[in-house]
């Protein structure tokens, strides 16, 4: 069952930017793209652990600030020549609020 929880107003996240959500397992980055879609991914690059939330957001992708790996926000997959993936979590916008699937977030502790 999906448990949508309200984590912030959409406007708390800058367009083409990100904020983080702290969880017991580390931070999740919540991105807002140019078209006001939101995406939630682990805030940790699989390469050297860079904080993806501090990267430059372009289209539906983010570039890691440490070594410029690029990840699709939709799939979490590394783009281009690099291989690797970041876990993604369901997130959506409703009435100007950002909702994220808490069950999946909590489930990852088990995984």
């Amino acid at each position: 069952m999906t448990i949508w929880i309200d984590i912030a107003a959409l406007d708390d996240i800058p367009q083409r930017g990100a904020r983080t959500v702290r969880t017991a397992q580390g931070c999740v980055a919540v991105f807002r793209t140019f078209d006001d879609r939101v995406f939630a991914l682990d805030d940790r690059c699989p390469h050297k652990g860079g904080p993806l939330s501090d990267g430059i957001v372009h289209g539906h992708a983010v570039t890691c600030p440490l070594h410029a790996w690029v990840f699709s926000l939709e799939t979490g997959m590394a783009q281009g020549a690099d291989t690797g993936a970041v876990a993604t979590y369901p997130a959506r916008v409703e009435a100007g609020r950002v909702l994220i699937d808490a069950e999946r977030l909590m489930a990852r502790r088990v995984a």
Partner: protein
Amino acid sequence: MTQRLVVIGAGMASGRMIEHLLDGAPEGWDITLFNAEPRGNYNRLMLSPVLSGEKTYAEIVTHDDGFYAARGIACRFGETVTRIDRARKVVVSQGGETPYDRLVIATGSAPFIIPVAGRDLPGVVSYRDLEDTNAMIAASRPGAKAVVIGGGLLGLEAAAGMAARGADVTVIHLMGHLMERQLDPAAGYLLQKDLERRGIRVHCKGATKAILGRDRVEAVLLEDGTVYGADLVCMAVGIRPEVRIATDAALDVERGITVDARMRTSDPSIFALGECVEFESQLFGLVAPLYDQARVLADVLNGGDAAFRPVQTATKLKVTGCDLFSAGDFAEAPGREEIVFRDPGRGIYKRLVIENDRLIGAVMYGDTADGNWFFQKIKEGTDVSATRETLIFGPAFAGGVQSDPLAAVAALPPEAEICGCNGVCKGRIVQAIEGGATDIAQLRAQTKASASCGTCTGLVEQVLALTLGDAFQKPAAQPICGCTDLTHEEVRRLIKAQELKSMPAVMQELGWRTSCGCPSCRPALNFYLLADWPLDYRDDAQSRFVNERLHANIQKDGTFSVVPRMWGGVTNARELRAIADAAEKYDVPMVKVTGGQRIDLLGVRKEDLPAIWADLNAAGLVSGHAYSKGLRTVKTCVGSEFCRFGTQDSTGLGIALEQRLWGSWTPHKVKLGVSGCPRNCAEATCKDVGIVCVDSGYEIGVGGAAGMDVKETQRLLKAGTEAEAIEITVAFVQLYREHAKYLDRPYKWIAKVGLDWVRDQIADPATRAGLIERFDLSQRVYQKDPWAERARPDAARRFRPVADLSLEAAE
């Protein structure tokens, strides 16, 4: 409001006309473009290099599908217009009727086919379009026999091209010497020798009687009985204006479609330009007057009052290795004198024709470097009586001792024409280079110099080399990123020229391929926009790399470093105490002295940044911008205040400079050093700007570096006073801000534009004052402590997680 324009013929003249037309009124025209050839506009002058294999067709396309699509031009390529119905203002073609408000006929010319038997045999081609060129390429197998009828410009280019591909080529020419309209017999003889040396047989005074062959061409028979075997015959004896459509429509037609100076035909709604027109009994075959017509017609259509005036043109042959030049009238006549210079050993021939103390014609073979200089004298009608003795030796002699190969170009006056096709003078090119153009591609884009036949490319490069100085190089033009084909320099120019003041404006107007750019172009665009429009543009934090967005330097573990500014490397007990307190309070794992004379607090957590900044702010410390593409530090020695060798107050000057420059954004980081004497303890000679104090003043050097490249500064200027040293430094930084490519350190930028140019700008009082004024204006917006702005509670929030689920998750 939009008018319907139908253009018949997509050639070079109409292509240029459409460019001008839409530049003048981008929204004013609904254009339908017919072309009998199944393609758009390409550079027809460049067919010869395609034939010889030096270029491909793709390289000579001037307007690709994207060009037409972007301008909403309806392209009807491969569709012939069969009739013009003037009464109903429609043109008729296979696709039906197309109505027009204005009609432009640009049908060009058709090759003249001599009426001999066998002219229709397969294997007989003319030399007019890509199909002809491809036919000749296909036939030019090594060993194949080709005959070119016609020893004029076009025929010889066809012959040389096929010979270059290995064919056995014979040129048959009716007259006594080759290119008789452009060359006198002596030059024609030298040209024939050069062509024969490369294996081309030349038969002058040869009249074609018949082309022989059963199913396809086999040989050419001349009146004198000579027979030349031929697998292919290229007829290049001349062209005639293509006027059939105009004749059928009962427009006034002589040899060409007659037009007035506004390019209007006898029907006020119908215009014509290019090789199909006749103006004041003249026909036009060279590209320069056609481009003039294009400019005039575009202006007239847009409601202007331009008028066409034919000007003199010069001729060059585009056959690699045959240097010939001809201009003006070089026929012998009573009252004319000539000056001839020959160097048989080197195959050089030059002849000048003078009438009434004025140069009226010039023919040169073998060495044509001075051609443009003479052509200029012909056009200006300069009185040459005073220099008559040495005139033939050209500008090198006129200018005194010059052995430099660039000397001839250097001696040209600003109004000397460099690109004949597009009528671009030297001054215009120099102006473009001084405006930031650093390579041929940019000059072509900005001035159109060398953008047509390309024979002046070498000259344009020489102007570039002269203007840029020793630093001239041929950099390959790299687009900024995959979002665009434009280079950094082109984008910088367009941002200024089109007054683009926001990122969406840049991406829209310059045709970005992505919706919102990428991590390569966005930081660059953000800088260009804030540097060019400090009052209009709003800095976009999301287009900055994390360090500049958060005003701290990200470390490998995702923590940050904090470096407060220490003006000129000077601090005091109170500041040191505040730094020590902060280091303890925020558990800073490492405190380190930097290479730029300040203190780095390493390993600060992101969410602690606003608080540590607030504490440091309270002690009067501000951001040191140790993370920015902007002013970093000004390193100093103790100077005359304490040092027994110091000549000036280097510390005081360093502090003054840092206070003036801090907070400014630049294309890359900028580091300064001020040393109090030539012993140079502040290592000023490897900084972006390094000042070395001497007894008599301040030696200012620029373009040093000590990173991946190590560079010593080059001397820019010397200042007599401290105030002047500051002014020169500020002006230099602003010049760099306005012109450099993003991520070019000053030394790289100077290598592109040339130190002499930089010095000329800074040394000129008016230019310097303007630079300083623009810098100070920008500083009014950008010289703010970013820490203070972000230490406020509402801004500080953003450094923390937006939500904390750790408690729920733990349950």
